[in-house]
């Protein structure tokens, strides 16, 4: 019985800060709360239907899928590469590790503002440098070009996250017993065989957790996009969190925003379950 008392504090916190807001959001999404209109009525699934039928939502949903799939893949690959690089023994290794970690410790707001200014088409330092090096013939509108803007914002979001993943991988690499590689060497493994058959299986846990965390962070990555472009031009860099914000605070449609939030939540839940399933399988195997 006393065991229940031990878990009571976290249970209370989870109920107050997670379960109650979810129930409130579900309730809100079934109503017609619009701040300008005083009457509120029960509308059932109308908000969900309205959202799911909207072409804008489809575009933003696709943007979000591109955002998290490419973002997660990119972050994990960069993190993995960097982790492996930092695992090598060379002079100034500690200094390089410290420098690489800087983006992670910088506040997201500062990162977004700094990159927004650096990437400004007319006044940004990036274009100035590229022009001086004769790498581009004219200023590039990084944040105004419809085919490019989403990926430019994604690059900034990844730039901030990858050091954490690299550090996670580095810590795991340190924990791999050296005997494993020695045994591999005796068996005559080459560099790639070592990497594929020895290193990667040992990193699986870190990669799954890193992937899950990156997916969650990217899926909820509001600040970077909102500060850099507000989702524009048009909806070309808009992702679901930005749409939720705009629906609630710029269109005053709280119920519709709650419906989009829950759709976002379900997507995130699906991704998390897939990752956890993969993780469990790996756990059972090991």
């Amino acid at each position, binding site marked *: 019985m006393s065991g229940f008392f031990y878990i009571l504090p976290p249970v209370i916190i989870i109920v107050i800060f997670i379960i109650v807001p979810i129930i409130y959001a579900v309730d809100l999404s079934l109503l017609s709360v619009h701040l300008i209109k005083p009457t509120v009525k029960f509308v059932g699934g109308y908000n969900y239907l309205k959202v799911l039928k909207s072409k804008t939502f489809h575009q933003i949903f696709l943007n979000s899928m591109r955002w998290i799939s490419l973002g997660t893949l990119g972050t994990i690959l960069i993190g993995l590469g960097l982790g492996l690089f930092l695992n090598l023994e060379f002079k100034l290794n500690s200094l390089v590790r410290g420098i690489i970690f800087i983006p992670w410790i910088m506040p997201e707001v500062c990162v977004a503002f700094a990159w927004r200014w650096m990437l*400004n088409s007319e006044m940004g330092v990036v274009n100035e440098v590229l022009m001086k090096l004769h790498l581009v013939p004219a200023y590039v509108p990084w944040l105004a070009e419809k085919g490019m803007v989403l990926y430019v914002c994604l690059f900034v979001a990844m730039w901030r996250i990858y050091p954490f993943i690299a550090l996670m991988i580095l810590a795991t690499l340190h924990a791999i017993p050296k005997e494993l590689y020695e045994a591999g060497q005796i068996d005559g493994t080459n560099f790639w065989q070592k990497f594929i058959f020895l290193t990667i299986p040992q990193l699986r846990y870190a990669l799954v957790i890193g992937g899950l965390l990156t997916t969650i962070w990217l899926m909820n990555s509001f600040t970077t996009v909102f500060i850099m472009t507000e989702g524009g031009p048009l909806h070309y860099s808009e992702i679901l969190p930005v749409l939720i914000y705009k629906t609630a605070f710029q269109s005053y449609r709280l119920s519709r925003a709650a419906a989009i939030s829950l759709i976002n939540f379900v997507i995130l839940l699906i991704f998390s379950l897939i990752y956890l399933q993969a993780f469990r399988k790996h756990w059972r195997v090991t």
Partner: protein
Amino acid sequence: MKKIGFLLMIVCLGWLVLGYSFAALAQKEVVIWHFGGLPAEHKWVDECIKTFNADHPGIKVVRIEKSWMTKSEELISAWQMKTMPDLISRDTVCIPDMVEMGMLAPLSDLFPQDIAAMKDRWLPECWNLGAYKDKVYGILTYMDMAPMLFYNRKMFAETGILLPTTWDELIEAAKKLTTKEHYGIIMPATLGLNDLEIFIGIAYANGGRFLNTEGDEVVFNGPGFVDALQLYVDLFRKYKVAPPGTVEIDYMKTIELFLRERTAMGLGMSWVPVAAQNIGVLPGFEYKMAPFPMNPKISGRYPAASAIMDGTTTYMMISTSKVKKEAWEFIKWVTRPESMQMWAGVRIQGRVATTGDGFETPAFAETYPDLVKQYKKGIALKGAISMPSFPGFTEMVKIFGHGFQSALLGEATPQDALDAVQEECQEILEEM
């Protein structure tokens, strides 16, 4: 003896603390959220508050600076959390939305005598900007007008170009003024309200309107708006006289690029001199403001508006305020002729006066000689109308902005782009 002295001292201190606490309790605090504005204006408002507080010992006005970009968000959050201030100063465009939400107190109902006495000081066109459904909700300090063209005098003189007065002349001038070093023109074209208002001003001048006269139909897909948008598209896409990143350049960046001589002309509102003053104009840099060129054949169905107006620092009272009387005292103080003179060029140049006394200020005549001449003839603000302002406008203008950018990005023709967003806006209007 020592003990008695000590006790007396404790009693005196106690009385002092008690007295101070009572005085503090008796003093009523009025909190103002001030949205937007520039440092020189903030400094001036703070001075005004200081003198008010000194003159009214029973009232303490506290000003909190808030971001212009997130004004709606901050107010909605505060409204939901019941942490609203007593007064706000922001733009008049938001009044219908805020009234429908129940946020604003009707000043004409609360202080009818004062309002009746004040009303005649303001030009009727300006006074009406603070009203909604026959009730007054906001008292204007100054207003901003759109659209305005600002141009670099040196570049014009060097190329021997005269100030364009028609759209065709504007295109020709922009073409001639485009060089390797600078663009011919910059039109701010983000989804920000100010940028869209500048365009809406051009469309209104071309006989376009956001809603029909009855206010029950969204008509921005009419020829007035479509042709104005075509002008933007031509300047940007066809003649390439504007920067390639036009859709990310907002009104502030436009002014900054203009001051850095990266463009010969720019589009803005009457606040350009205020913003330029804030950024800093280099010695020898000469610029002028002029009315935006007109389409010689007005294509819209409505009368051409000479300008559209927005009272961007209008004092409004929050309906939940518990110190309405005290808050009203401050509104009266900050809108006295001697206070309003500061907005009319004595301290801040570029804002457009809203009262007769403001128009008569000599400093105002220096910035806006033509407006003052018109005022003296009794035709000031003739043909000028309010920025679109009705419940749902905040939501609709964003959707409108998507049509606007869609045409600029070449996704659709101006007509198709505006037709597409008109349907969505009509749905919202009917819902309201």
